[in-house]
């Protein structure tokens, strides 16, 4: 961390605070090449304090929060513009049959409409098509993994 003087633009914060009030938003975040600024106002007590009531949270694959916890935004794939979310609850498969080649691998270039995964629900194999053409930069599910509605499957950039 630099030891020079960190001049902050207080006027900008005040302006954003005003804007926040006017628009009744609870949060504004602005980023440009050399500055990122975020202001927020929580009107009621933070709801997450309730989480202490959860006695034994059993973490499992199917429980992955889809963009629920705002403190976790950075690196949340659900927020990524190239994210392909699961269209339904079910079990994700990366290939058409056990042992077959996966539909896609990281680094592959895909075309819009191309099948990239299968989500099985009620014995029915639902093909997940690429919503856009691009390069697969990340595959977020294992073969045979349970997925919720909206859970990020892969990222196409």
């Amino acid at each position, binding site marked *: 961390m630099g030891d020079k003087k960190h001049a902050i633009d207080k006027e900008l914060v005040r302006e954003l605070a005003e804007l926040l009030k006017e628009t009744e938003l609870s949060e504004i975040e602005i980023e440009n090449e050399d500055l990122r600024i975020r202001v927020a106002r929580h*009107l*009621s*007590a*933070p*709801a997450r304090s*309730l*989480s202490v*009531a*959860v006695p*034994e949270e*059993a973490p*499992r694959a*199917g*429980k992955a*929060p*889809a963009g*629920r916890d705002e403190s976790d935004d950075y690196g949340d794939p659900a927020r990524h513009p190239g994210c392909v979310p699961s269209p*339904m*609850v*079910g*079990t994700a498969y990366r290939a058409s049959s056990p042992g077959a080649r996966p539909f896609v691998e990281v680094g592959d270039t895909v075309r819009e409409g191309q099948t990239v995964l299968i989500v099985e*629900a*009620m014995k*029915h194999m639902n093909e997940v098509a690429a919503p856009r053409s691009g390069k697969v930069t990340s595959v977020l599910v294992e073969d045979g993994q*349970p*997925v*919720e*509605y*909206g*859970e990020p499957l892969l990222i196409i950039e």
Partner: protein
Amino acid sequence: MFSKVLIANRGEIALRILRACKELGVQTVAVHSTADADAMHVRLADESVCIGPPSATASYLNIPSIVSACEITGADAVHPGYGFLSENARFADILAAHGITFIGPTAEHIRLMGDKVQAKETAVSLGIPVVPGSKGAVADSAEAARIAAEIGYPVLIKAAAGGGGRGMKVANSAEDVERAFDTARSEARAAFGDDAMYVEKYLANPRHIEVQVMGDGEGRAVHLGERDCSLQRRHQKVWEEAPSPALNAAERQRIGKTVADAMSKLGYRGAGTVEFLYEDGEFYFIEMNTRLQVEHPVTEAITGIDLVAEQLRVAAGSPLSIRQEDVTFTGHAIECRINAENPETFAPSPGRITYYHPPGGLGLRVDSAVYQGYRVPPHYDSLIGKLIVHGRTRVECMMRLRRALDEFVVDGIETTLPLFRDLVSNPDIANGMYDIRWLEDFLAASRSSEKIA
């Protein structure tokens, strides 16, 4: 007992079911739409699965998603709550095909009671008194007029598939019949895509009295007394109480036994409610709900029986934990349904609850899934909580309700709490002198007196 139950519902009833499961040591899976990710029952469940977008059709009514959620979590039973898929026979069939227990009656009994004409025929065959009227659907207004002449005017012309007041018209005399029949039929066609109609005796000032039953599916059934749900607005119950201020012990005993015997004959499994109109000492069958009802806590308060735990036991193949002779009625209970609505216009009032403080103390129960900071979503019904009060007598119960309402704080949204503060100090309510039209009349009078003032 089951090892893991999936709760296919939301709101207060999802939390109610979760509590019963926890108290029986059963693991829970909450399913939810994206709009309900922060719901209380989702936070408290052992596991949760997001099953779709906010629209109920795409989430809570989405059978493939719910079955998939069972499969990926390994749930061995589903509790459907009320509403949504709770009276969907196809859902019960599909679950059965997947080896998952539906916590409720058989699909056959759901279908039977889901069709008004069949339900009424079944009631007659089981010895349950019905409203005099057409045996099955009537072909046209001429047949309707013939039947009306037999049973006497006024008569009600009603869609077989109906509900919520749609596809229903009253004919006060022979001249009215044709117009009433045609109007009701075209409403029915538009609303339900089914224009089968029937005709029955119209009751001028009835009360809504319903009998709670519980069967084991093996021919044993008990009744848990009645609830008086006459205070309704647009066919939605607002205030429910037990025992009914209108019934005496002999009437209670008679109708209870009739219903329990009928359910025993039917071999009914699980919780059910047989609804009646009651006028001049007579009961007339309306319909049977083959599920848990919103107002079940009223019965729990006066009997001490946990209806949801009993549903789970019976669905898991255990016998009923109660025999008829074990059921005793203690004191009086009232439930107020607190909705996120303007208390005068009843316009929905979704939004963030900025302050929440439920009342406490002796004889009170609050069933609610809201909390301070919770945002009531605009996608679902407006029920945000139920206040249930129990007292040794109806007077004690009313006094307790009054003080509980004074303590109850929900800020940030509008609620129907002010309506209940009015009702609890109304002399007709104090005297138990109300029928199913009373509340609409009271609300109309309040509106017009405001206009004058």
